[in-house]
């Protein structure tokens, strides 16, 4: 499997994030997501994130949280994308 670039991942994650956000909160994201957006300030709660991770696993066929050896939870959107990029199975 070839690695997906970080930019492509960011686009895909943003799409799934927006879909999940809309389904879970019934509204649109208030501000545009940037590299530094703190995830928990977006309005998506922990159940929402749990759902996001599962939806992403369906899209990407991997879950970085179970693949990564580090006990790490990304805080910003940039870290989140990077975490997915770094933990892609080769």
């Amino acid at each position: 499997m070839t690695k997906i670039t970080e930019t492509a991942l960011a686009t895909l994650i943003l799409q799934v994030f927006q879909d999940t956000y809309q389904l879970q909160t019934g509204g649109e994201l208030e501000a545009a997501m940037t590299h530094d957006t703190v995830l928990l300030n977006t309005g998506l709660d922990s159940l929402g994130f749990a759902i996001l991770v599962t939806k992403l696993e369906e899209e990407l066929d991997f879950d970085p949280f179970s693949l990564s050896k580090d006990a790490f939870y990304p805080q910003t959107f940039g870290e989140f994308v990077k975490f997915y990029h770094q933990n892609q199975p080769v």
Partner: protein
Amino acid sequence: MSLKHNLDALPGDRELVLSSSGVWEKARVVAQPRNAARLAGIKVALCIADAGVALRALCVLDGIAQQILLLSPAAHADLNISLATRAQCDAVITDDLALLAVPSECLLSVPTIESLIAARAQWNGVVGEKTRWIMTTSGTTGTPKLVSHSFASLTRSTKIDATRGLGQKWGMVYDYTRFAGMQVLLQSVCSGALLLAPNYGMALNDKLMVFSQHGCTHLSATPTFWRKITMIPNSEKLNLKQVTMGGEIADDRILSVVSARYPTSRVAHIFASTEAGVGFSVADGKAGFPESYLSSPPAGVEIRVVEDILHVRNPHVASRYLGEQTVLSQDDGWVDTGDAVSIRDGRVIFLGRASGVINVGGDKVHPEQVEQVLLSHPDVAAARVYARSNPITGALVAADIVVVDPDAEVKSIKKSVESHAASLLERHQMPVLLKVVSDFDVNAAGKLLRNDK
């Protein structure tokens, strides 16, 4: 009273079982082999695919053997050997070639009861008061457990009346070695009815064909099986007089679908568990049972609700799993069934297994409850809800559904089912992933497998 003596009142030519080995009249079932007394006190395991052959072996052994372990012919030979070892069996009678071929110093494998008699002049010699019947729990998860019964405890709710069953033909969809299947076998045989018993491994459509050809009148199956049965072409041609559901929660929808499909039949759902022995049946066509059962118990089985869990008391209950320290019944005889219930509008409704609860970030979800919501959508024929592990909440709810019309457009049905579910479920109960599949697996007891992913 032993199994064999219970058949005394039946005429010798009464047909009791139709299995792959042909018709078993009563005389053939109770025929004693020579020197059967040699088997006195033996601990024997049976692993026999053919229900007629097995019934005959049970007739010979009940009242002579110390214990009979019933092994599922559908289970792997290795598992059956480990179960026989755990139950300290002396020998196994089996038509499973893999099991026969296993060399074992402590477990003798033979193909027939005659070969067992020929093998040794004497076993343990002592004839027990009553023979223990050891059954394996099917378990929707984990390894099977051994539970001790007797012919008396297994036939507690059976009306033993040889005249009742004349003309009745009972269909066997279950594995007869399991609790539900054994109930069907014993009830049919002890009432003198004919049991239509195709081998367990046969496909459900083919079993239904056998039932249809031979005029099956009584059919007992799990709600999951009934949902499948109603989807099989020509299943409406069965001319049933009695429909029984058990082993899983019977919801209002499947009860009404089956009642409409078989208008001349009596439709009942039963509550029973291997551990508690048989429970009670409800025939008013509605899910759950009347709250009045808590004060005036049906069929002498006492029922109470403790912290939303159903407890029952049955004087014949096995007090513990074999080979384990876990005590099933407390000293006063009450058994925790592990079934979560709630009381609504004078009705005790089953929510699901307390142990099958999915924990979504601390919120409990009963898969059965979500399944019932999915099943209440008109396009959903069957539903299976299970846990999907998740790094944030520990688990989330996932679901597979089978749709009524296999040619329907999947995307629009999914959308419609999702919005239906969202209107009835809390956020944490909602299936995050909803997949349309063509069929589900069921376990040996006909219960839905909810293996987590």
